[in-house]
């Protein structure tokens, strides 16, 4: 077995990546009832736009970075405004499947426009390195972890104490009743889509630095994020945050065990399955308890 410490340290950084994406998914789901499977693809496209601006020298660096965040917000908002209302009354399965269409469109566009060359972005914060237990943690990794925590707590506060947050929670429970109560449903939903998209753009920018600007890699990074969201039962922001970190730390820690390291990318699935089984078991026990 290799020295475990550097892998645990790196696992925090990796977990921050999964956590921030997972929280972004749950935020949108709680507000609109839509599980956005195109989350990774939107971030990846935004990051590639940033790369193009930087590569061509069209604008200062900060404008290029901002472009990624703005792109995430606009595309997500556009999707929500155009497709949100027609799908509003449909089953969550249909809503989630519809976002696969957006994923495929963005994936195809990326392959078409940028797909055949290698690309990379280095944020200024990636040059600040701190050595901990034999591993180097960059400023971007620290920002990633902080970003996940800030987004989680900020969203939790928003949903709990603000008027728009209350409206979002009401919408997630019952759109029709919320509308009859005079809540401007479309405007509240648009705000949720926009907020989620901005977070998605920010996450895409950070992720392009932390895991690399690889089209397929970033697009399918939604998988461990989905696993974290599943463990949080698509409801709890804090459990999702913790699950993201847990997946990252376990997956990275397994790298130290040469014999099983090859299988470490199964970590999100294994943990999600264990969590789902546990939820099912708990629910069964609760039903049995009520019956007796």
């Amino acid at each position: 077995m290799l020295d475990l410490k550097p892998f645990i340290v790196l696992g925090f950084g990796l977990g921050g990546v999964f956590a921030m994406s997972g929280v972004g998914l749950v935020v949108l789901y709680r507000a609109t009832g839509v599980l956005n499977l195109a989350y990774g693809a939107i971030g990846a496209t935004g990051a590639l736009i940033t790369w193009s601006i930087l590569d061509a020298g069209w604008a200062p660096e900060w404008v290029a970075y901002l472009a990624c965040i703005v792109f995430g917000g606009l595309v997500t908002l556009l999707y929500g405004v155009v497709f949100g209302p027609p799908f509003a009354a449909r089953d969550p399965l249909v809503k989630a499947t519809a976002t696969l269409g957006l994923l495929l469109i963005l994936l195809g566009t990326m392959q078409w426009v940028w797909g055949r060359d290698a690309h990379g972005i280095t944020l200024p914060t990636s040059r600040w390195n701190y050595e901990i237990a034999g591993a180097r943690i960059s400023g971007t990794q620290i920002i990633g972890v902080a970003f996940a925590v800030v987004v989680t707590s900020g969203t939790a506060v928003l949903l709990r104490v603000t008027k728009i947050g209350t409206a979002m929670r009401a919408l997630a429970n019952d759109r029709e009743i919320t509308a009859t109560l005079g809540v401007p449903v479309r405007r509240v939903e648009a705000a949720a889509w926009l907020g989620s998209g901005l977070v998605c753009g920010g996450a895409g920018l950070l992720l392009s630095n932390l895991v690399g600007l690889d089209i397929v890699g970033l697009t399918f990074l939604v998988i461990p994020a989905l696993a974290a969201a599943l463990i949080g039962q698509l409801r709890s922001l804090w459990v999702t945050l913790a699950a993201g970190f847990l997946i990252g730390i376990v997956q990275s820690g397994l790298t130290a065990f040469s014999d099983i390291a090859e299988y470490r990318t199964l970590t999100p699935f294994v943990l999600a399955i264990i969590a789902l089984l546990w939820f099912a078991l708990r629910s069964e026990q609760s039903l049995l308890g009520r019956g007796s």
Partner: protein
Amino acid sequence: MRRSFLGFVAVSVLLIAACGDDDDTTGGGGGQAEEAPEAAPSDFGPGSNIQAHGECGEGTGEAATGDPIKIGGIATNVPGIDFTWITEMTGAYFECVNDNGGIHGQPIEYIAEEEQIDPQQIASLATKLVEEDQVLGIVGNTSIIDCSVNADYYGQQGYYLIIAGVDQACFTTPNFSAVNMGPYYSSLGGAQAALRAGAEGTMVVVSPNQPGFDVINSGVTEFAEENDMEGVSILEDVPINDPAGLAQRLVAEAGNGGGVVLDFTGPTVLPLLQAIEQQGLIDQVIWASSTPPNDPSVAEELSSAWNGKFLINAEFNVLDSGQPDQEHMNEIREQYASDVPSSSFAQMGYLAGRVATDALLGIEGDITQESVNEAFRGITNFVSDIWCAPWYYESGTGENVSNNIDLTVAPEDGNMVQVEDCFEIADLPNNPLDEIRAAEDENSLNTG
């Protein structure tokens, strides 16, 4: 409803994962550990096959209008592995031939298919090309599984393919001859360069976790053991989602001063290289690679910290060599396939088209399936400044590795530059290069 939705999400995760895990692969090169490098490709001088500036095929400048000659090709295209660059470039060369008189007035109709690493699909595509389209020859095939799945079928049907090989079956079956040397030999060449650069103790090789890549890695581990080093083979799921962790593992496995050979495509390896730099691990081991990262876009994205420190085995000459054939390839790529990146994959497609065209032009009498495949088999001593040594189709040993001499390049301030001249890929007890080179000498197959 809630529980069924969670179940749906879980199933979706698994399905998306199945798509995302389709990976990555490479194209390969090689060398011989202690021997001094021999010569640069340009040292072979222009031969009779060197293409004149602006010309393709007969170079008449007039479009061919006769009955088309059907040629087929199949390439893998899944997320993370796109070999269609190669068939596109082969098709581009044929288009240029068609604009220049074709094959004695007959245009080439190139039918290029794509496959998704599905044995049933690729078997049916081969059947379609042979029985439905009735192609006369097959050129430019580049697939993870085509050689393993269809070798017997092609043999029974009398086809001798000119390909860019990936899996080892492409180099051990007489019905295939590759313009490249594939990831087994290219990784081996990377290991040879790392050894020459001073790697000691342990040699690690890491490849995509795909069918057949354990065999590809075995060349490096065997080479390490032959040179009193420990060999470690790692298969990694791609795209790599924790590049910093993998970087730490590779260095820990290799130990200080060891060697690490990476066997990934350019877009996949770049995040890993950036993570290696961020983790401060560039100077901990000797880093080497098989051919695919010999790609200008990789060099452009790497910082100067990597200057001269990433030894890439190049199966072909550098892309900015300024040599006639290389310049010709660049012209054709720009004119007919500008979306194909200037890369080793483009070189493979160009060369496959070039040698096939040369063979077709040499046919006397009717152009039939039999005469086309006989012409392909008969190619010997095909000179190009893109190769280190002249190319031939058949070694006569039943195993064809015609491209078995290559060079080493490394990134240098945003460009790929040649750092070692041409050298022979190491012959090992478990590879056939010793017998093949003996056959080359005996039959004067690559003398130029």
